[in-house]
């Protein structure tokens, strides 16, 4: 279920072909490509032109794509999340998803050296055309700003900066400002809506979908999704702090 023309390798190493939808969808190269697409989409969403209002149509289309990928990954059972390990995790269930992503990102920081510019992450995606221009251009400034920082303020900063980013997508008339703050933590809500698309359930704060995310399973080491979010995290922090 990827762009037509991209070859999918047949299942290797005796992978369980009964799991997942068509069996071929869970193959490593397909998962890798899907993961890359997810990374790319998240990067595109976060990289707003801060001076000119971003294109709402483009943002909506990318967000819908992210949602589709997330839904499929959830169905495949490949959407796995680190169980919260550090002390002092937020009690509210609906904060779990973002927090976990942030925390696991910081764990990744310790493991990874300055990141490679991601060439290896997109095999077979760019057959003839020029390679990965936007993603690489993004990663170079981010990698130079790589810092380990696990303070709680950071997470607030992350969410706050996302809030700012999403505010540029919406109007700032009084009515919609109220909409923005209709929940206790609306910035998280924005992120969640974008990432999971399970908006209705988050309204009450106890989405069954979110619970699925918390079902713990250790991620494969060096999961690219987490480290990409880490890079995003830091890029956004830099934007907020400057």
């Amino acid at each position: 279920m990827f762009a037509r023309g991209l070859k999918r390798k047949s299942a290797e190493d005796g992978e369980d072909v009964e799991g997942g939808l068509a069996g071929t969808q869970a193959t490593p190269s397909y998962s890798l490509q899907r993961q890359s697409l997810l990374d790319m989409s998240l990067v595109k969403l976060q990289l707003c032109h801060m001076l000119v209002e971003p294109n709402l149509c483009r943002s909506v289309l990318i967000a819908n794509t992210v949602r589709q990928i997330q839904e499929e990954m959830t169905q495949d059972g490949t959407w796995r999340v680190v169980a919260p390990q550090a002390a002092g995790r937020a009690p509210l269930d609906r904060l779990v998803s973002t927090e976990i992503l942030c925390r696991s990102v910081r764990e990744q920081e310790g493991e990874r050296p300055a990141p490679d510019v991601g060439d290896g992450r997109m095999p077979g995606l760019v057959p003839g055309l020029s390679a990965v221009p936007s993603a690489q251009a993004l990663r170079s400034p981010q990698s130079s700003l790589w810092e380990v920082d696990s303070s709680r303020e950071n997470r607030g900063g992350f969410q706050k900066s996302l809030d700012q980013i999403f505010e540029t997508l919406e109007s700032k008339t009084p009515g919609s400002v109220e909409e923005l703050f209709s929940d206790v933590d609306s910035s998280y809500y924005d992120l969640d809506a974008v990432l999971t698309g399970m908006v209705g359930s988050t309204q009450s704060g106890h989405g069954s979908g979110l619970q699925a995310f918390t079902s713990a399973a250790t991620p494969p080491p060096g999961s690219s999704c987490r480290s990409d979010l880490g890079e995003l995290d830091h890029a956004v922090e830099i934007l907020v702090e400057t």
Partner: protein
Amino acid sequence: MAGAGGGGCPAGGNDLQWCFSQVKGAVDEDVAEADIISTVEFNYSGDLLATGDKGGRVVIFQREQEAVVRTKCRIWRDGVLPLFACILAVRYAATALPAERWGSGLREAHRNKSRPHSRGEYNVYSTFQSHEPEFDYLKSLEIEEKINKIRWLPQQNAAHFLLSTNDKTIKLWKISERDKRAEGYNLKDEDGRLRDPFRITALRVPILKPMDLMVEASPRRIFANAHTYHINSISVNSDHETYLSADDLRINLWHLEITDRSFNIVDIKPVNMEELTEVITAAEFHPHQCNVFVYSSSKGTIRLCDMRSSALCDRHAKFFEEPEDPSSRSFFSEIISSISDVKFSHSGRYMMTRDYLSVKVWDLNMESRPVETHQVHEYLRSKLCSLYENDCIFDKFECCWSGSDSAIMTGSYNNFFRMFDRTTRRDVTLEASRENSKPRASLKPRKVCTGGKRKKDEISVDSLDFNKKILHTAWHPAENIIAVAATNNLYIFQDKVN
């Protein structure tokens, strides 16, 4: 299913041989961002061609009035009755010129006698700055001055009116000519200085003297502060009194005379913006039924609304959507189904939509699927991931009908544009490039090679230049003249007169 063609006008597409006519714009390799053309539109007679660019400027070209001379000469030579000749001459003049310029129009026409074989060329008529960059202090964001759309109003007097819009503000411009000047004022001198009242001993009546033609553009109405999101479409109603403007989430109805009020007729903004999954991408009024309009969405659907049914047209009268082909489903299916342009046919019976890979013609009486689907660049389907990466997948291509509705045209990459003849079911790919810019040079059909073996003169998919995109094209309302915007250049092509 064959689509019905238009009336008796010459068919478009491949029955004709398209020839280069003119190209406007700088030749430099370095293109200034402000010079990129963002909209192209012929007026109702086709004698005026307006372009808008990213720098907020509007340039209007006017067609030379050579038709008058040629017709008159020929008829006199053939010895046809003088009365018939007069009628024909008047008919041409009425379509080409405003009534009161009849006299000077002839004068201009005679000037072209030296080039009897040239078709009417388009020359610059007026240039003005329509929109300036603005800054929204509340959001700390710039408002781009890029002209998103220009729509002409039907001509009602000597002046020409057009609507131009950027992301937030619509302006009504009046373009008028002045070729006379009053001389002999009592209170001031010819250079404008006030005369000393004590020196005035006699009164005189100012007289009108001819002067060099001056074309002035003045903003007559400014329709502002009605759109929170970016305006993507404007459309003049067939009643010639109202028009609609559409942004990502709302459509407003305006009266041309009233700038401080507009009616909201469509609002798809959800209560929680986080629930937003669909936006409005284009909207247009029906060409004849003043109560009917359509709007397209980013999910590939078109809704037809009747303003008589309720004040807020959130409930559509018709809903057009083609069922998805499950075999070609991918993560990009929704993005490529997003409709970038919707245009009614001149007849009002059909409408055409452009999505990323195809153009579809819909019969307004059938909502379940289009009556025609034309592939623009199907060879890009296997490249969607790369095109998503470099954002080309979000390019918004426009489309247009020929005057008789027998052909449709749309742009592609590498400065290619495609034409589909609906009657012969044939299509052609042509290129707008400086290499093919010899006067009256025929355009050679181009072909993109998708398979392994590349034939001579074919271009492979991987060699396409995705920075050279033709997003905006326009077709003369009556003749086979097309205007194609290629980045900062405007190409005009005409059919070869046999």
